[in-house]
């Protein structure tokens, strides 16, 4: 049943559409257009009619204007005059407008020129701007480069600092090593010194034994000589034992509280003189060669073994030393070109005088028998004599 419904309904629809197609569509538009056109035509006809009527009226008015009654013609003439006035006014307005038009176009031309100038200026400015931008870019590039180089330098700096610290560490390590090595060196030196002192002791001992043997021999000789008192006493030279030799020429003086000895043998460098009073002896210490020592036994027959006094006589080496024959004064001469007089009465030697005048190192000094003059020989090929009392140079 539903299908049938649809069927007749559909057929109905279809027939309606066909009817419309047949009856409506061909005519609708055309009839509408037609009606519109008809309306337009009637409208235009009406307008046309109106205009033609007006035209006729005007024509009749114009035609009858010249030959018609005075009132009419006057009216017409007045109208004509009014119209002519209007016409004149219009023409004036027209000329005014033309003038204004000309002015306006002139203004337009001027403004165009101005606009062009402005555009020119703008172009120039743009050129400048472009240049500035280029310069800016270059500067930025430079800045970039500088920054990168700065970075590199910082890196270098860092590496240098690292190296520095590494080197410092190495340095400290090496310092430690050095200290260690120096310690070792010191130790070794101490040992060396000890060994050397031991050697020196040994040598001293040997020396002493030798000396003892010698002294024994001398004793025997002396005893023999005592038995025979005609034999001459050789002058002895004695030199210090070799201990505490520095070889630097300190100029130390050694004194011994033993017997004085004197000997006179050939080939000996320094003379040693027995001090007056017969108790003290002295030694010079520039070299360490052993000397033959002869014993002089005016008093006790012993070798000097202990140092009584030690003092620095000269800045440089001491070459000569002499006892004064009359008083307890010592004269020393050294490489510092001076002869010094020392008073050794007390425990420490007191410098009594300094005799200068020599131009080279003093090699030897001597007193005269009265003890009032000192003579000194030096390396400057000359000998000088001073008086002891007033320490003045007497002869050169």
């Amino acid at each position, binding site marked *: 049943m539903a299908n*049938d*419904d649809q*069927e*007749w*309904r559909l*057929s*109905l*629809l279809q*027939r*309606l*559409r*066909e*009817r*419309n197609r*047949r*009856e*409506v569509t*061909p*005519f*609708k538009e*055309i*009839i*509408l257009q*037609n*009606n519109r056109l*008809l309306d337009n035509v009637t409208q235009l006809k009406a307008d046309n009619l109106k205009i033609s009527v007006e035209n006729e009226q005007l024509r009749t008015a114009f035609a009858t204007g010249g030959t018609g009654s005075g009132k009419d013609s006057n009216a017409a003439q007045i109208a004509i005059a009014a119209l002519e006035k209007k016409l004149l006014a219009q023409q004036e307005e027209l000329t005014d407008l033309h003038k204004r038009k000309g002015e306006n176009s002139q203004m337009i031309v001027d403004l165009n020129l101005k606009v062009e100038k402005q555009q020119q200026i703008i172009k120039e400015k743009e050129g400048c701007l472009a240049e500035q931008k280029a310069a800016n870019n270059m500067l930025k590039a430079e800045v970039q480069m500088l920054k990168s180089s700065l970075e590199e330098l910082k890196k270098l700096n860092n590496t240098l600092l690292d190296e520095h610290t590494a080197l410092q560490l190495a340095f400290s390590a090496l310092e430690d090593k050095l200290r260690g090595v120096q310690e070792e060196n010191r130790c070794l030196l101490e040992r060396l010194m000890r060994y050397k002192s031991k050697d020196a002791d040994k040598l001293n001992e040997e020396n002493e034994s030798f000396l003892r043997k010698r002294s024994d021999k001398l004793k025997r000789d002396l005893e023999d000589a005592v038995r025979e008192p005609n034999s001459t006493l050789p002058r002895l030279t004695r030199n210090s034992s070799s201990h505490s030799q520095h070889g630097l020429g300190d100029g130390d003086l050694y004194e011994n509280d033993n017997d004085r000895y004197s000997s006179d043998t050939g080939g000996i460098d320094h003379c040693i003189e027995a001090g007056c009073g017969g108790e003290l002896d002295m030694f010079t210490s520039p070299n360490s060669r052993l000397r033959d020592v002869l014993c002089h036994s005016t008093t006790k027959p012993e070798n000097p073994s202990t140092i009584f006094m030690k003092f620095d006589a000269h800045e440089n080496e001491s070459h000569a030393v002499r006892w004064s024959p009359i008083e307890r004064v010592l004269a020393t001469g050294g490489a510092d070109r001076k002869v010094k007089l020392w008073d050794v009465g007390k425990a420490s030697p007191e410098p009594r005088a300094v005799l200068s005048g020599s131009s080279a190192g003093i090699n030897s000094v001597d007193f005269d028998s009265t003890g009032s003059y000192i003579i000194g020989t030096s390396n400057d090929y000359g000998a000088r004599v001073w008086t002891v009392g007033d320490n003045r140079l007497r002869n050169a």
Partner: protein
Amino acid sequence: MAHDREILRMIWEGQIAICFQADPDEIVGLQQPENFHLMVSRLSYLPLVTDKVKKFFSRFIANDQPDGAVWFDYNGIPLKLHYPIGVLHDLLRVEDDNHPWSLTIHFSKFPEDCLVKFDTKDILESFFMSCLKEADVLKHRGQVISAMQKKEHNQLWSGLINDKFDQFWAVNRRLMEPGAEQDTFKHIPIRFYDEDSTYMQKLISPLTETGQKKILNDLLIEISTPVRKAVGFRTHGIDIHCDTQLQWMSEHLSYPDNFLHLLVFYENM
């Protein structure tokens, strides 16, 4: 209830192209008026749509006639002014070519014996309203139309003359509701037109004796006489399929006066 809006719309928008000619006897002056063409709605009435035509032709006519004396004819047959245009067209149009329907407008010599004069539109409105009431009496015993207010009646009329589909059908929809107790109208308001422009109105029920909804076949049988057999119906310019339900037809294919105007084709036995 009239659900099928598409059909309703198509019915409402049906139009006919008419070409109005002036009566040559009545033309005054030298100018020959041109034919005036117009598209008119099938559902409307001639006096309602021909104002412009009258105005157009009245310039060429001696204007001393009263306004209501305008009448039309087709091929010599005067057209009844109270029939809907679609009905007139279906009844009278003979040739089926592609020309608009040619009618002649007359301003004088009103045939008083054939036509009813409709001087003003109000007369036509009263006639329209009476048709509506007659139809509603047939459908609902007159209850619906009498329950409506005057302004709704006016709305129907103004919707028709102004061609406002929604305005008209807002009210007409209530007239198309089936009755309270059954699913259909009580009777179908229907007029059967013969080929000589007379019509017959019978009391037609939408249901058969068995209670089923009647279709057109049943109706054909119903109005056939032993002398003449009805073979087909036409309305709104189309032939109707014989299986169409009568109730549906009444709801959708009625003219604005709520009547079905069917042209019947007869065969003589």
